[in-house]
């Protein structure tokens, strides 16, 4: 059909025969994309008198915003298992002075942006300090930095954009009590690293960090977010349900996956660690100490859905909208609102990922 697009000549793609996650609901609507952003088709119709150049039949798939994993570990390379569902974010394990960070000051702990394969554009934000342990240690990050890395550059350069973000992560691997945790929130902390793991257990007279979920000392307008590793191993489903029911809006699914994600069972050497993979468990070799997880983000979404009995929309938002809100990027990511970045996944009804699109281009297909 002839189109007269007064705003831009860039091609417009219309994704049809799909259900999109919008306004917290799955709606039977088409998704329109132009120049890597979600397009408002009504404005296109009336203002530009334009129409789609191409249609993609999604065969009744669910379209959800691309998952954002705010806690995943890798060294110089991404974990292979994450490629297919996630807008990858990575943390470097304990090496902020490494070669990737020569332009960063000491304040920024871990930022990685990886631009490994051809068309993937990633954001990298770290919210976890290295395992220096203890609350109030002297390496608390005071700002979030987004590092953009162009895939074409080799060796990879880093574009550091400092955000003067007041939010600094609460440190997991902490023995803080509730008052200390509330103090940290007042000072700007926004995120609890993998709730329940590596913190004092909940006690009814001293709830510890877990008590933040229902604390009445959280300043109004602020949301405390908390990561949950919903791989069925790190957290008992009952604990997952308790956290979810206490504070559903703050739940952020994370994988805390290590580079072993996607590797077959057996022993593997990763960096300086030797780990052993048995099924979905990864242990420090020779022990029963969990060493990170190897669940992929979509596995976590499915497990969370099944374990918590929440709605499909809630499960998908825990992996997309909530992490985007945590990072303060929910205008661009974690949403399919008009104007947002066209980063999304196509899922079937069991929430298995069928395809991944970044900036409107397909980057992975099952």
């Amino acid at each position, binding site marked *: *059909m002839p189109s007269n697009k007064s705003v831009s000549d860039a091609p417009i793609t219309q994704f049809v025969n799909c259900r999109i996650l919008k306004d917290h609901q799955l709606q039977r609507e088409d998704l329109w994309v132009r120049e890597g952003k979600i397009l408002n088709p009504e404005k296109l119709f009336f203002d530009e*008198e334009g129409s789609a150049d191409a249609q993609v039949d999604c065969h009744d798939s669910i379209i959800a915003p691309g998952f954002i994993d705010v806690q995943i570990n890798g060294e110089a390379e991404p974990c292979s298992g994450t490629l297919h569902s996630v807008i990858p974010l990575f943390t470097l394990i304990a090496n902020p002075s490494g070669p990737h960070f020569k332009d960063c000051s000491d304040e920024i702990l871990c930022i990685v942006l990886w631009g490994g394969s051809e068309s993937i554009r990633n954001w990298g934000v770290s919210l976890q300090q290295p395992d220096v342990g203890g609350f109030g240690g002297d390496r608390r990050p005071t700002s979030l930095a987004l590092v953009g890395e162009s895939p074409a550059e080799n060796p990879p350069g880093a574009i550091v954009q400092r955000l003067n973000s007041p939010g600094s992560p609460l440190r997991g691997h902490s023995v803080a009590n509730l008052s200390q945790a509330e103090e940290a929130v007042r000072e700007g902390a926004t995120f609890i690293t993998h709730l329940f793991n590596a913190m004092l257990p909940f006690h009814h007279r001293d709830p510890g960090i877990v008590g933040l979920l229902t604390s009445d000392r959280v300043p109004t307008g602020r949301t405390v977010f908390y990561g949950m590793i919903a791989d069925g191993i790190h957290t008992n489903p009952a604990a997952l349900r308790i956290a979810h029911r206490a504070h559903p809006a703050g739940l952020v699914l994370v994988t805390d996956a290590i580079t072993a994600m996607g590797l077959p069972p057996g022993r593997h050497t990763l960096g300086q660690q030797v780990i052993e993979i048995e099924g979905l468990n990864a242990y420090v070799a020779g022990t029963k100490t969990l060493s990170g997880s190897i669940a992929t983000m979509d596995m976590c979404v499915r497990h969370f859905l099944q374990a918590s009995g929440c709605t499909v929309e809630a499960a998908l938002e825990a992996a997309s909208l909530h992490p985007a809100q945590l990072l303060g990027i929910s205008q661009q990511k974690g949403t399919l609102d008009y104007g947002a970045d066209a980063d999304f996944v196509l899922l079937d009804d069991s929430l298995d990922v069928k395809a991944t699109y970044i900036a409107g281009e397909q980057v992975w297909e099952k």
Partner: protein
Amino acid sequence: MRLVILEDYALASEWAAKYIRNRIIQFRPNSDKYFTLGLPTGSTPLGCYKKLIEYHKNGDLSFKYVKTFNMDEYVGLPRDHPESYHSYMWNNFFKHIDINPANAHILDGNSHDLQAECDAFEEKISKAGGIDLFVGGIGPDGHIAFNEPGSSLVSRTRVKTLAKDTIVANARFFGNDLTKVPTMALTVGVGTVMDAREVMILITGAHKAFALYKAIEEGVNHMWTVSAFQQHPHTIFVCDEDATLELRVKTVKYFKGLMHVHNRLVDPLYSMKDYKN
């Protein structure tokens, strides 16, 4: 006039959609000869729009060579407000079909010169060769489009202040808050619709019964502006049983007796597929 009476809302909507479909297909529109359609909004035509969309999705009907002209639009309501008639037409019709956006005309209620906007609309209709089929509804006060009681029966497209009845009827779309309902609208005139080669009025529901009675069993009267169509050579009223509740039994029996004639207008039902070559 033809008075086509169907048993319920669904059947009335379907009959109307079939009629529109047949008219478009038999016209054999192409790039040199567009079919011009006048369109209404409101709750009455929703069923008809749904059927037309279904015909399009089945490949039986295309709007590629159809130009549309909507009857009206509120003044001062932002175009992307969920209750604007632009939003209504996008969500209930345009986004589901293959019409060329440049051929879908709706009055702009936010134009800085409203009367000029109205005059330009008349000009567009004229340039398009006039309207082949104008589909409309009827208000509980017997109005066509926003030609409220007292409107001239030879009026053209213009700004109108809405009558209390109309504002109250529309309040349900604005959270039942009368203060939120727009008080002015741009509307095609009675004369504008009378210029169409054919007019089809959809009337369903018991709450429209009195207006239908006034429109067809009483005289031509500017207090019930739909009555003007008694003087149009080709008018069809499509209604359900409930809308006939205020009519004389004799009138209803007469027209029901003619249904076999009326049904020849929708049976056989044509399809674009028949004319693919």
